């Protein structure tokens, strides 16, 4: 049941990403290119997703103490704004601006079957593995 539910929810997410334009690097990069071939469409993606989620979360947290198929809500509680968060996010933005794919756009884009997406996703997974290895070796004493 849990697997089936996650599969269906993943499908809704994937179709949403695909029709929104987030899976299309040309469109994503144009959103950020105000000085060039600007396409403001992604404001509507972010706005639609944000408002829907904000309302949806309120309804869910207001109605239930626990999720329907699991024991508890797992939501990050940290409020610490540190160099790791800011530096990591800045790096993410640089990579997004170079390639035009973000993780949530690239994974559904795999289903469109273009080789460029597979190249990007392989490199991104490589990046996560590199970061995780750094975390477990060099950075281990600093971050618990």
């Amino acid at each position, binding site marked *: 049941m849990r697997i089936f539910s996650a599969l269906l929810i993943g499908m809704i997410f*994937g179709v949403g990403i695909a029709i929104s334009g987030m899976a299309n690097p040309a469109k994503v990069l144009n959103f950020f290119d105000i000085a060039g071939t600007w396409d403001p469409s992604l404001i509507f993606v972010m706005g639609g997703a*944000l408002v829907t989620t904000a309302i949806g979360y309120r309804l869910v947290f207001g109605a239930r103490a626990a999720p329907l198929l699991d024991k508890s809500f797992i939501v990050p509680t940290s409020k610490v704004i540190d160099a790791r968060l800011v530096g990591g*996010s800045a790096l993410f933005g640089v990579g997004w601006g170079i390639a035009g794919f973000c993780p949530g756009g690239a994974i559904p884009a795999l289903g469109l079957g273009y080789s460029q997406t597979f190249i990007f996703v392989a490199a991104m997974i490589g990046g996560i593995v590199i970061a995780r290895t750094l975390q477990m070796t060099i950075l281990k004493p600093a971050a618990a």
Partner: protein
Amino acid sequence: METEFTPLLSLGGGVLIGLAATLLMAFHGRIAGMTGILAGVIPPLSSDWPWRAAFLAGAIVAPALYIVAGGEIPFAVPVSTFALILGGLIVGIGVFFGSGCTSGHGVCGMARLSPRSITATIVFMLATFVTVFVVRHVLGGI
């Protein structure tokens, strides 16, 4: 390369993304952040990897089914293979240390008014604007 302004399709897609985020919280109690979901299926696997794998499979299969059913999804990559690899590596490292991406911080975290997510989203959006400007209008593409 010009792309067509698609406010209605983009809004509809955004609402579906928000619906998926809401349902994932309602049924599974989880944040619909692609970084976190993906990281859990990269070895060493997290203990709850099956639902993550199912979500990812759904997210990949659905656009394929949409096209098989006759739908059209415009797609173009206006950058080099080198840029895809470089950008992919940097995105992977960045989202790991930043603990999230557009979906986790930009949608789910912002919707909860999380100060970490609001900070992260402002930082990565600004970094992306600056990067695209530098790549396209200073370097002339990579």
